[in-house]
């Protein structure tokens, strides 16, 4: 197929525009390219259909495109027999029911009754919708399952490794697919309406269809790029502006293979007694309540609390850091530790600050000791949080 006598072209005309397709083939024949084969890599009416043209001497031919799904080989033979007897010569067809015929002289079109043609299109449109249901349902379940957690159980949500790849996957696979399918369905319905009004544009120009299709395609591509780029930036979050310094987040240096007492994987996190304890405490203090010993800050206020803690850490010579695996935290950068936005929960007690961190590999806990931070700063932190909440 890849020799010089054949040319492959993408199909930018929706197949329900049968007249536009026929006109397109006719114009191509006048340019010396004769439709020879239709193929697509997957089933369905609107998935990556390609045309294969063969080069011959240019001439004027009449084409006709029909949507027909043969029940069996016998119905296929009978259909071809009727079409050929009426003057149309079979060119090619594609699984899914697109048939292309040509003739050297004008012939009666294959579809002469608008009602019957509308019925055929309804079948195509229905099948297109059925095609849409399962993949989209699965993708939506995949995409929104972790998001659902966000509303019901924020702590589990932040422990979920599913969250990060969800957005780009959703944008790349689901949105363009759904847009294309819906576009196809809407197009079919429009044409069905026209047919019910006995309107069939016999000289339907295909250029408009191509333009619309390209616009739609590039819109999808732009959308995918936009979401991918934004997701990548959102995921990386490795450089965060804080106190006028651009500081690499420490998460990138920590492999998170060990932790103090919080499991690494999601399952560990959910079932580890320590995390269950923390979770329970978090629930108790989720309205940023506190007692004398410890306090949890909700994620949305953690940033505010962190400002104070970071300042304190910065000025505190005795502060020690531990992630349970001997990572060197003596550098200045760690004093402005900031992991990707909103992915940490801070717990303070009278002796230390425990920051629940999450990086691409999972959850872990960073303990900053040697401080009497909470007791000193509690009121100031709460005051700042209250200001922000107001």
């Amino acid at each position, binding site marked *: 197929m890849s020799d010089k006598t054949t040319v492959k072209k993408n199909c930018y005309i929706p197949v329900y525009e049968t007249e536009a397709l026929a006109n397109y083939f006719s114009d191509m024949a006048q340019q010396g390219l004769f439709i020879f084969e239709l193929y697509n890599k997957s089933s369905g009416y609107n998935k990556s259909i390609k045309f294969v043209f063969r080069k011959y001497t240019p001439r004027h031919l009449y084409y006709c495109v029909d949507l027909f799904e043969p029940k069996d080989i016998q119905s296929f033979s*009978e259909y071809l027999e009727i079409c050929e*007897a009426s003057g149309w010569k079979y060119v090619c067809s594609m699984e899914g029911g697109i048939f292309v015929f040509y003739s050297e002289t004008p012939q009666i079109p294959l579809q002469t*009754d608008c009602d019957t043609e509308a019925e055929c299109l309804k079948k195509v449109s229905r099948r297109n919708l059925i095609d849409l249901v399962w993949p989209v349902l699965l993708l939506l379940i995949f995409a929104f399952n972790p998001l659902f957690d966000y509303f019901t159980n924020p702590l589990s949500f932040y422990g979920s490794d599913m969250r990060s790849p969800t957005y780009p996957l959703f944008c790349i696979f689901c949105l363009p697919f759904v847009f294309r399918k819906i576009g196809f369905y809407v197009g079919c319905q429009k044409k069905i309406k026209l047919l019910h009004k006995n309107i069939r544009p016999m000289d339907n120009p295909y250029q408009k269809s191509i333009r619309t299709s390209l616009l739609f395609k590039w819109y999808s591509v732009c959308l995918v790029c936009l979401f991918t780029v934004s997701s990548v930036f959102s995921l990386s979050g490795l450089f965060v502006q804080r106190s006028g310094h651009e500081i690499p987040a420490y998460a990138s240096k920590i492999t998170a293979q060990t932790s103090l007492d919080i499991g690494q994987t999601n399952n560990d996190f959910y079932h580890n007694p320590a995390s269950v304890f923390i979770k329970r405490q978090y629930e108790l203090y989720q309205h940023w309540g506190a007692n004398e010993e410890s306090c949890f800050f909700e994620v949305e206020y953690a940033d505010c609390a962190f400002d104070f803690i970071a300042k304190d850490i910065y000025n505190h010579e005795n502060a020690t850091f531990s992630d349970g695996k001997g990572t060197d935290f003596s550098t200045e950068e760690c004093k402005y530790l900031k992991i990707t936005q909103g992915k940490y929960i801070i717990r303070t007690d009278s002796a230390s600050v425990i920051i629940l961190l999450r990086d691409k590999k999972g959850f872990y806990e960073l303990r900053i000791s040697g401080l009497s931070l909470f007791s000193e700063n509690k009121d100031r932190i709460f005051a700042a949080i209250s200001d922000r909440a107001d």
Partner: protein
Amino acid sequence: MARVQLQGLSEPMFYLLLALRTPQYGYSIMRIVTQISNGRVTIGAGTLYALLSRFESEKIIQNIENDGRRKTYSLTAKGQEILVGEYNRLKAMISDADNCGRGHK
């Protein structure tokens, strides 16, 4: 739309059944329809095949001969009944229109 307007058979449907009063195969039906309508009604091959399939599944017509590639069809009793019913309905409509016209005169 035509079928809805007529509350019965559409024009191609009616002519197809009319052509099948005697057993016919696909292309001959097309020719007969053009012939009996004096070229006013033509049925395209795609339309014809869709109608044949539908009528056969609704047992309005039956396949009486099959040589592999070509099938010969004829009306069933149900098909006859539908055709006669449609004929009477159209005749009644024409009669009513005539009476109405005379009244105006």
